[in-house]
């Protein structure tokens, strides 16, 4: 038996097979990333069949798109096609004659032509199939036709600027993106000072007493708690117990957009708690990396403990601390589950007006669109994912640049 095992491990055949297995696994692991990205790109472009409720030719036979119609004619079209009630509401908000050309275009698309996507294809399904689809569905690519085939970039700049909507054609991620930025801001403002202070306490002040050891173990355990449990914590503490505070009632900020504590500040605070252990651990590592000689020489010239930390240890470690904080923040940007539990709104069409507004964030928008059965919303979700990944990429790139910049500087100094 022993001999057989020995022969098995010694044979060239086994050795080669083993190397092949390892390489295959590595390729599998890296190709997972590749396939993931390709799936998203594949879904963010493709052919669509669009159908207008009111054909363009009926409005102006000589133009290629709604935007090309003259300004005067646009107002005429709006007055002609809109229900009197809707028209009165629009006029009350701002008279049509005072609105910009782009606004009029949007109104016509939203209220008059109301394009509907009947069918959509992914990029792979679209390549080389245009003629086939045109024959099968009897549509043309003429932009003036009420039912036409278009090649669609789902990641259109419009998607960034448009608010959420139940209509695929005009739905966007503006409110979600702003919500994400707000929540990020709140969470880092709360978690960064507390996290760094905790790290300073544990690294510089704490003696190895039982309590401090428990504190350290506790931080490692906190980092391992599923994020959804932080959501429940946020729901009970920030939404229910501190409801009057987080809904803005105490500050007389109650307006029609408050939501019983299910606000940006509750979401930001919840995520702040979530990233706190991550910030603490990375800041501790940064402080540990600051050389002991630095502290000794500072004490040697008579500085106090806090002076040593503030003027010597922190400046030495700050780049690593900030890098860690950015990485923690990028974790917060992608978090979905705790925010759903805290009470993200399913539909936010207006921009958040402050920390006491209802909130939705980019990952939540992606979740809601992905969960819908229609293909079109899945494609919108893919486009939103691209935006989210770009946001994360730029944050991480910033962290890496910062780290490289400072590590070069440090090498020069030493």
């Amino acid at each position, binding site marked *: 038996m022993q001999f057989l095992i020995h022969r098995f*491990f010694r044979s060239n055949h086994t050795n080669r097979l083993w190397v092949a297995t390892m390489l295959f696994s590595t390729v599998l692991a890296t190709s997972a990333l590749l396939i993931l990205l390709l799936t998203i790109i594949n879904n963010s472009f493709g052919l669509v069949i669009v159908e207008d409720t009111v054909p363009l030719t009926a409005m102006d036979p000589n133009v290629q798109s709604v935007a090309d119609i003259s300004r005067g004619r646009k107002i005429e079209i709006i007055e002609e096609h809109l229900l009197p009630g809707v028209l009165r509401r629009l006029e009350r908000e701002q008279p049509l004659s005072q609105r910009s050309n782009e606004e009029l275009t949007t109104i016509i698309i939203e209220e008059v032509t109301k394009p509907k996507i009947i069918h959509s294809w992914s990029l792979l399904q679209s390549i080389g199939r245009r003629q086939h689809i045109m024959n099968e569905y009897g549509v043309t690519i003429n932009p003036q036709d009420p039912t036409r085939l278009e090649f669609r970039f789902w990641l259109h700049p419009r998607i960034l600027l448009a608010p959420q909507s139940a209509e695929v054609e005009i739905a966007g991620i503006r409110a979600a993106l702003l919500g994400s930025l707000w929540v990020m801001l709140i969470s880092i403002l709360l978690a960064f000072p507390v996290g760094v202070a905790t790290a300073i306490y544990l690294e510089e002040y704490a003696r190895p007493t039982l309590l401090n050891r428990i504190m350290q173990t506790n931080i490692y355990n906190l980092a391992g708690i*599923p994020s*959804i449990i932080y959501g*429940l914590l946020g729901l009970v503490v920030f939404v229910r117990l501190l409801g009057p505070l987080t809904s803005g009632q105490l500050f007389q900020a109650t307006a029609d957009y408050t939501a019983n504590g299910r606000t940006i500040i509750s979401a930001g605070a919840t995520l702040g708690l979530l990233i706190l252990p991550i910030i603490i651990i990375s800041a501790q590592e940064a402080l540990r990396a600051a050389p002991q000689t630095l502290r000794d020489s500072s004490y040697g010239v008579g500085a*106090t403990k*806090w002076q040593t930390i503030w003027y010597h240890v922190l400046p030495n470690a700050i780049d690593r601390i900030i890098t860690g904080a950015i990485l923690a923040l990028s974790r917060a940007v992608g978090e979905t589950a705790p925010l759903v539990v805290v009470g993200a709104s399913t539909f936010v069409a207006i921009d958040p007006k402050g920390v006491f507004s209802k909130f939705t964030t980019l990952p939540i928008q992606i979740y809601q669109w992905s969960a819908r059965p229609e293909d079109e919303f899945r494609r919108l979700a893919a486009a939103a994912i691209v935006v989210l990944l770009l946001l994360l990429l730029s944050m991480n790139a910033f962290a890496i640049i910062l780290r490289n910049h400072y590590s070069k500087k440090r090498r020069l100094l030493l």
Partner: protein
Amino acid sequence: MFRKSRVLSPHWYRLPVVRSRERVIHFAIRVAAGISLLITIGIVAILLSQSILFFGNAEVTLRSFFLDTVWQPLIGRFGIVPLLNATVMTSLIAVLTAMPVGLCVAIYLSEYASERARAILKPTLEILAGIPTVVYGYFAIAFITPLLRILFGIFEEHAVQPYNTASAGLAIGILILPLIISLIEDALSAIPNSLREAAYGLGANKLQTSLQVVVPAALSGIVAGFILALSRAIGETMIVALAAGAGPNFTFNPLKGAETITGYIVRISGGDIAYNTPDYNSIFALALVLFLATFILNLISRRVVSHFRESYNE
């Protein structure tokens, strides 16, 4: 230049203003550090108190909670078995697919790969670790499920339901792969080189050295990685919320839909729900089970790791 007394004992340190400032700062930092303890206390207190409310219902007993195989709040049946079963299934699928692949990649990175290969592979895997989980959820429904439907469609046309635990499990597997790789690689590279040199000295080849010497020596570290990955998989939410199905279902078939504990919590709390109803309280009881499970797994894994470190730090 300086008077001697000034150098030896800086008298300005004895100034009350400096001393009180030091004290205030020390106090403030202590308070900040206490917040991390408060989070844990808060979590435990909330989960416990709401769970006690839940078990205070006449309909619910501890026995029925853990043994009843039906979860239907509408008819007052709260049996955790179907939810727990789905959680165990997705996590096991994830860990059992990710573990062999992760082990191979980690051995490759630690024992075989050139510096250049490592320099390319490690950042790539780090990118994989930084992608939000909701994106993996999307990936599960947009790629893995259609793939499974094509693969299993050969045998039986509707074998794979549109939402199923297999695709969620595979997506979680990809999610935890970078974690597994980095944990195992750490364990492998912690093995002192003297062990490898001794093996080579006895005439072992590279395969023998890696699989018969290094891997057994790092076994406890590998086990710790396995446990940590399992705990991460159990707590994963968005992937199962999107891909595993919405509705408790007691089945052992991974191609059918079944809601997990986390999936249920997200679905219930995402809807409009009245506070202090049995429905609402039930999510806290479920979260308590989840919390205890991940907490114990993390604790075991940390114990194993520290034990492992001690045995090689002489």
